[in-house]
C-alpha cells in the first residue's frame, strides 16, 4: 500500500469519525448529569437539514454550522422540558424525539434534496497543509474536525478539574444528595441536555456540510445510535470515546472502500458492518457489569422530583 493511499484512508477515517465524536461527547456530558437522551439521531437530522438550509441560503458554511447547533439545542430543549419539567419517561421521550426529528427533517428537507453545496472549507494553514502526507492527514481538515478534537480534552478537563464539572457529576451520581446540598439539579440537567443537543446539531451539520455536502432523508443512517453505544463503550470517559469514534470511523471507511479493494462481497454485507460492530462493542463492554456499575452515572435515566 502506498503512503498516499494510507494518507487517504486516514483522512477518510477522520471525516467518518468526527460526527460520532461530536455527538458522543455531547451525549456523554448529558448522561454524566444523569439524563439519558435517546434522541441523538433525531437531533442530528434536524441539525443536518437546518445547517444545510442555512448554509445554502446564506452561502456561509459557518452560518450553517451555527444554525445547526442552535436547532440541536432547540430540540434538546423540547426533550428537557418534557423529561425535566414534566417528568416524562426519558426512554420514551428520547424515542419520540428521534421519530419526530426524522419526520421533521424529511419535511423541512424536501426542497433541498439533490441541491449542491460547497463543502465546508478546510482551515488551510500555510506551509503545514501543503506538507506531503502529513499535510492532508493532520492539517487539511475543516474547523469542525479540529473542534471535535479540541473538545475531547476540554470536556475531560471540565468534568474532572472544574467545580461546575464536579457539580454536574454529583447531580448525575445522586440528584437527591445534590439537591440537599442546595445545587440546582434541574437547571444543571437542562444545561447538560442543551449541550448535548448543540453537539448533536454540530454532528448533523458535519454530515450535511462536510462529510457529504448535500441533504438526503435519514442521512445519519443510525450514526446517532452508534454514538449512544460509543458512550457506553467509552465507559463515560472522553479519551476512550475518541478511541471508539476513530475505531468506528475505520469500520465505516472499510465498508465504503472494501469493494474498491477488490473484495467480492455484496454491498449489503459490508453495510451491516458498523451495526454489527456496534453490537459487538456493546457486548464486549457490558459483559463486565462491575465496570459499568463503577463508571455509569448512578442516576441515569431516572426521574427526579425534588419534593418526593
Amino acid at each position: 500500500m502506498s503512503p498516499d493511499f494510507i494518507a487517504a484512508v486516514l483522512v477518510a477515517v477522520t471525516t467518518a469519525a468526527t460526527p460520532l465524536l461530536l455527538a458522543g461527547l455531547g451525549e456523554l456530558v448529558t448522561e454524566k448529569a444523569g439524563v439519558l437522551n435517546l434522541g441523538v439521531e433525531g437531533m442530528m437530522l434536524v441539525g443536518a437539514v437546518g445547517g444545510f438550509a442555512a448554509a445554502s441560503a446564506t452561502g456561509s458554511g459557518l452560518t450553517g454550522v451555527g444554525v445547526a447547533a442552535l436547532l440541536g439545542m432547540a430540540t434538546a430543549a423540547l426533550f428537557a422540558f418534557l423529561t425535566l419539567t414534566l417528568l416524562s419517561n426519558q426512554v420514551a421521550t428520547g424515542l419520540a424525539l428521534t421519530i419526530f426529528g426524522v419526520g421533521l427533517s424529511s419535511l423541512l428537507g424536501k426542497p433541498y434534496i439533490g441541491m449542491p453545496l460547497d463543502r465546508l472549507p478546510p482551515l488551510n494553514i500555510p506551509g503545514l497543509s501543503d506538507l506531503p502526507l502529513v499535510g492532508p492527514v493532520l492539517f487539511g481538515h475543516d474547523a469542525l474536525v479540529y473542534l471535535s478534537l479540541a473538545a475531547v480534552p476540554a470536556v475531560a478537563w471540565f468534568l474532572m478539574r472544574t467545580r461546575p464539572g464536579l457539580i454536574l457529576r454529583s447531580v448525575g451520581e445522586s440528584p437527591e444528595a445534590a439537591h440537599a446540598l442546595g445545587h440546582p439539579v434541574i437547571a444543571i440537567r437542562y444545561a447538560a441536555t442543551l449541550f448535548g443537543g448543540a453537539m448533536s446539531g454540530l454532528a448533523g451539520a458535519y454530515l450535511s456540510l462536510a462529510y457529504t455536502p448535500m441533504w438526503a432523508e435519514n442521512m445519519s443512517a443510525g450514526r446517532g445510535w452508534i454514538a449512544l453505544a460509543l458512550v457506553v463503550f467509552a465507559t463515560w470517559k472522553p479519551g476512550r470515546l475518541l478511541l471508539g469514534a476513530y475505531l468506528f470511523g475505520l469500520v465505516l471507511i472499510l465498508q465504503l472502500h472494501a469493494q474498491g479493494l477488490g473484495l467480492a462481497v455484496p454491498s449489503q454485507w459490508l453495510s451491516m458492518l458498523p451495526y454489527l460492530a456496534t453490537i459487538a462493542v456493546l457486548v464486549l463492554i457490558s459483559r463486565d457489569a462491575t465496570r459499568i456499575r463503577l463508571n455509569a452515572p448512578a442516576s441515569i435515566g431516572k426521574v427526579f422530583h425534588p419534593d418526593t
Partner: protein
Amino acid sequence: MTATPDAAPPRLELEGIAKRFGDVVANEDIALDVRAGEIHALLGENGAGKSTLVKIVFGLLQADAGEMRWQGRPVRIANPSAARALGIGIVMQHFALFESLTVAENVALGLDAPPPMRELNQRIAEISERYGLRLDPGRHVQALSVGERQRVEIVRCLIQDPTLLIMDEPTSVLTPQEVEALFAVLRRLRAEGRSVLYISHKLEEIRALCDRATVLRGGRVVSTCVPAEESNASLAAMMLGEGKLVPDRPPHAREATPRLELRDLSLPSADPFGTALQHISLAVHGGEVVGIAGVAGNGQAELAAVLSGEVLAPSAGAVFLEGQEVGRLGPAARRKRGLAFVPEERLGRGAVPDLPLTGNGLLSGYATQPLVKHGLIDRLGTRRFAQAVIERFGVRAGGPAASARSLSGGNLQRFIIGRELLQQPRVLICVQPTWGIDALAATAVQEALLQLAADGAAVLVISQDLDELMAIADRIAVIGAGRLSVAEPVAELSVEQIGLRMGGRDAA
C-alpha cells in the same frame, strides 16, 4: 449549663412555624429557641414533624407561616446556601454523599466557595486532627463505612465554621462506641460556644447529652424541658402521649431442632459496593426470636437476599429449611416450604407502589394460597386475601383497591407483615421491622413477631436498632464485615459487648 446571659437573644428562634403537605399537617405553630453554647434536643417519634422542621430551618422547605429569627434578627432562609451563609450546618439522617466521588470532592460540593483542592485537603486534615475525626481526603466514599461517612458529613459542616450544627438522628447507624466518640465531638463543639440542634427519638441519649429539649408530637410542640431532670418514662410520655412502649411478650418455648439453618455459607457480593459473606453459620429454632445486630452495610442485605432466595447460595447444602437443603431454590419454592420474608425496603421490594393492595397481596401470597388457577388470577380470591390482611392486622387503608403508595409507612408495614403472617409461615425473616414507623405501629409489629414465635415459628430479625433487638430477641448474633458471630442469649450479653462486635469493618 447555659452560660448565655439572659439579655442575649437566642442564636435561633422559631415562632409559629407551620407547614402542610396537601391535607397533611406536618408542623403547626412551632416555637423553639436554641441558645449559644447549648445542645438542644428536638425529640419526637417517627412522623412527629422533626424532619420537616429541620428542612425548613436549613432552607430546603419554606414554611407556610411563622417567623425565624437568627441572633434576634428576623430572617428568611430561601435555600441551603442562605442557611450556610448564616452559619448553619447540617448532618442529614440520609447522608448527602456521592459514592463515586472522593472525600475531598464530597466536602467541596457542600461548600459555596471551596478553596483549591490542595488547600481543601489541608483544611480537612486540620479539622480531622482537631476533633479526632480520622479521614483520608483522597479516598472514595464507596469504600467508607457508615461511621466514616458520617465523619465526612461532620467535617463538611465544621470546615465552614458553623455556629449552629443540626444533627438529624445521627446515632441510628452507629455502634455504641461510635456514639460515644460522636458525643465527645459534640460536647467539644458546645465548649467552643457553638450550638447543636440534636434530633432524636432515643431518650437515653438525649438525657446524657442535651441541655434542653423541645418535644414534638403530631407536628406540635408539647413541651420544652431539661432532659437531665426527666426520666425516660416522663420523656416517653411527652413524646408518645398515651402510646404503649414495650411489647407484650407471650411465653414461648424453643424447639430442639432448628427450622432455619445456614452452614458455613460464603458468598461473594454481586455488587461491587457490596459485602461478601464469609463462613456464616446460624441456626434458628421454632419458638424463638433470633436477632442479627450490626451497622448498615456489613452484609445484612446480602444475608437477607440469600435467606429469602433472591440470591441463590453457592451450594444447596448452605441453607436448610426444616432439615431440607434449599440453597439452590428460589423464593417461590422456599415460600412453599414455609418461609416468609419481610424485606427492609417496603415500597419497591416488599410492595409495588402503584399496584393496589390486592396485587400486593398476590405478590407473595400466590406461592402458598390458591390465588392462581390455570395461569389465570383468581380475582375474587385475591381480593378476599387482601381484605383479610387488612382486617386481621388493622391496616388503615381505603380498601383492597388502594395503592400501596397511598399507605403510611406504618400501615404498609402492617400490611406486608400481615400478608406474610396470614400464610402461616414456619419460618419468618424480617429485616428492620419497625424502622421509620410510628410507635403504635412499631409495637403492634413487634407483638405480632413475638406471637408468631410463641405459636411455634422460627423468627429471625435483622435490625440496626439494638434497643429493639434487646427487647424482642431471645438470642442475638452480630454481623460485621460479612462475618456473623455466634448467637448468644440476650440475658448473657451487654450492649457494650455487642457494640464491640459491631465494630467489624470500622475496627479493621
